[in-house]
């Protein structure tokens, strides 16, 4: 950890050293990201092709290049707690153009997975889980649509889990295997009461 200067807490915080202290980095983080993402983030040479390609970069502080840098240096906390982590639209433009043949998008997805392990996750992601747990669909059917479907000569509910709810137990079993629903419910409750 960074050394403390022995100032009063408020002053210590204000004059906090921003320099890169080696003690702050976690080399295991780099290795873990590399393994889980099945790509080669350690090969990043910081050319910026990713950020230059990124549709999110011009309208936010999200910099995929910086996330790649954090992986290279093992800056786990900095990477996982940055709210910009959730601004990647997964368009894969960076992955298509990266001259080092890295898939930065998959690196972001891996870091999101690792963030979730620390309960860091926007609630909307979890709501998709609860929706799928309930009906098998992230975007479920509704009455207006049922009527429209009938008019188009389709079944009121599509021949998915909507029409065959007997398939739902298996889906719930799979999600429960990973305790995903329980975790989602817990986190949503913590955030929204």
């Amino acid at each position, binding site marked *: 950890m960074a050394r403390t200067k022995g100032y009063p807490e408020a002053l210590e915080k204000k004059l906090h050293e921003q320099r890169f202290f080696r003690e702050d980095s976690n080399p295991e983080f780099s290795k873990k990201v590399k393994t889980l993402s099945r790509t080669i983030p350690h*090969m990043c*040479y*910081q*050319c*910026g*092709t*990713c*950020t*230059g*390609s*990124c549709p999110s*970069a*011009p309208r936010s502080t999200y*910099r995929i*290049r*910086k996330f790649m840098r954090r992986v290279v240096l093992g800056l786990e906390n900095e990477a996982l707690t940055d709210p910009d982590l959730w601004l990647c639209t997964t368009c894969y*433009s960076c992955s298509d*153009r*990266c*001259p*080092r*043949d890295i898939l930065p998008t998959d690196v972001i997805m891996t870091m999101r997975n690792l963030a979730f392990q620390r309960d860091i996750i926007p609630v909307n992601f979890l709501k998709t889980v609860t929706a799928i747990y309930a009906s098998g669909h992230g975007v479920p059917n509704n009455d207006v649509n049922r009527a429209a479907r009938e008019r188009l000569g389709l079944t009121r509910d599509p021949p998915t889990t909507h029409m065959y709810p007997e398939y739902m137990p298996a889906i719930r079993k799979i999600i429960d295997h990973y305790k995903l629903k329980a975790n989602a419910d817990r986190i949503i409750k913590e955030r929204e009461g």
Partner: protein
Amino acid sequence: MAEKKSTTKKTESKKDTKKVAPVKQEVKKQAAAPAAKPKAEEAPAKSPIDNLAKAEDARIGVFICHCGTNIAGSMDIEAVQEAAKTFPHVAYVDNYKYMCSMPGQTVIHKAIKDHKLTGVVVAACTPRLHEPTFRTATKDGGLNPFRFEMANIRDQNSWVHMHDREGSTDKAKDAIRIAVAKAALLQDLHPKAVPVEKAAMVVGAGVAGMQAALDLAAAGIKTYLIEKDMSIGGRMSQLDKTFPTLDCSQCILTPKMVDVGRSPNIELMTWSEVHEVEGYIGNFDVTIRKKARGVMTPKEAEAKGIVGGGCNGCGDCEGVCPVIKPNEFEIGMKPRKAIYVNHPQVVPLIYTIDFTSCVKCGLCVTACGPEKRAIDLEMKDEFVKVKVGTAILATGYDIFPIENKQEWGYKRYENVISSLEFERLICASGPTGGHLVRPSDGETPKRVGFVLCAGSRDNTGTGKPYCSRFCCMYSLKHAHQIIEKIPGCVPYIFYMDIRSFGKMYEEFYYRIQDEGAKFIRGRVANIIEDKATKNLHVMADDTLLDRPIDMEVDMVVLAAAIQPAADTNRTRKLFGVSCSSDGWLLEAHPKLNPCGTTTAGVFLAGVCQGPKDIPDTVASAEGAASAASIPIHMGEVELEPYFASCIPEKCAGCGMCVNLCPYSALSLVEKDGRTVMQVTEAKCKGCGTCGGFCPGGAIWMNHFTTPQIVAQIDAFLLGGEQ
């Protein structure tokens, strides 16, 4: 040196005259039971098969090198030494910090004398590095140099098993035991000397090929300079100025081109290609295809009895030619006729007909007139055979097809051009007379973006993984040129690193920055064209500001990667030269033999070996010329005596080996009324293809004989149990 040489020669000739076919019985015995004691030798020098060393008489010395800590740091030298003492035939073991040093070598030749050694094993680095060193030491100790065997305990052991001390120690013991087993059976071998033709060939007449040919010619060597294009000068003649001195490229190149044309020792063959290569160092028989150029030189005309005729470069033919095609020299930005020259300063100034577009209307023939009669529309390709002692490949490079990197829109957006196109546009003799204009509307650009590493340092498989090495510098030069020529024009250089490594290069970078070039540290992600204005939006990340940028410019220049010239692969195969995975021709050793190749007598000059700027290219060409002149000046070369030998008694004359030999070294001959195989030793590289195949076991691979290899395998398999 000269004295040494003559000694070898004498021994060699002695051997040649005394060489007789091996006695059948003896051969059988040797091949079947390597460890069995052969009959005592009567004569000291008979067939190589006769004087096979007798394992039981062998006294082998083992010398273990520490290589500083390279070896000693990863294994227990003491333990290795103790183990070596127990191996069969080992008469002496020693170790030293640096076996290759003078004191180390002294240890070896002293031990040979003191302990009456018959063979030497050095356990150290690799034969590639120090085989010659230790052979000399063996010779100095009074043994035949081929009585030396190396055990590689560094590159293949201590370096790769750096963290496994026990394992590497055991492996070193194995390696030495195997080497000792072979050393006990090593024979005296004598290199063969062959005469060297006093002529050389240079393939490719760009600046590298020209320089190499000029140097060889100046050293008094007849040199054939082969160029596939119609005139010489190569890529350099397409450039406007050169960095960092800003000399005009043509101005410094033209004198060399003229010298090449004038040199009595250079036989320049343009519009020609190497068609076939046979032979070996000292004696390459090269067939050259002189492509039909449809126009005769004055010399060729004279040979046909047209005195005072032939092309004088007047250009009357070009004037009347009705065919219009894009000029490749100007990268299609200027028209040319079907009969044409690349540019006004060409050497040789001889017109050429592009027969793929010529309509054979005959107007040029009429225009040329009855005196010169230079044009022959029915001309056919001709094949010319020459003999040379050595050859230099200087086949150069092409621009990588940068349209393959689609994100930058080359060939899709009019105002995105390649760096070579920029050279022609900024050049006074180019298609626009030196005015840089936008291809879309002919307007002068005010903001120009430069995309560095366009296809270089690219591991996607589309581009090139290497640094093309001169793009940074010529882009700085381009920036200078537009600042100088177009007042108010700003160059924006998008870079990852500026690699200004050469003499006065960093200073040049300083100068261009001072002149007003803007440097943006970020690789260009993509380029978007404004359909209405044809302006370009360069999308990148200014990594230093940490801000994505969308910069609108009038024009973009792509500093495109380079790749080996189109015909390189065909040419290199003719000469038996390897290439690395990126296609560049492979030198014998990147540091210690950068101009040589693994084919003796064939050398590399310039960019065909890998990206080089002009100074490095010329330096490499001079190096290659020097290296290629050595065998010629020596008059003869020694060949490694690893060639195959035929045991006529066993040979059935089936001829399978003759077809298999990649070097055409084998032939069938009549001997004592039988058809048997004969080896042309100078052509044989000792690859072993024939020996491995021969169904009758009639082929004997010197220095890699079956008994030697079997002994090595036994030593490994039986391990320490012996």
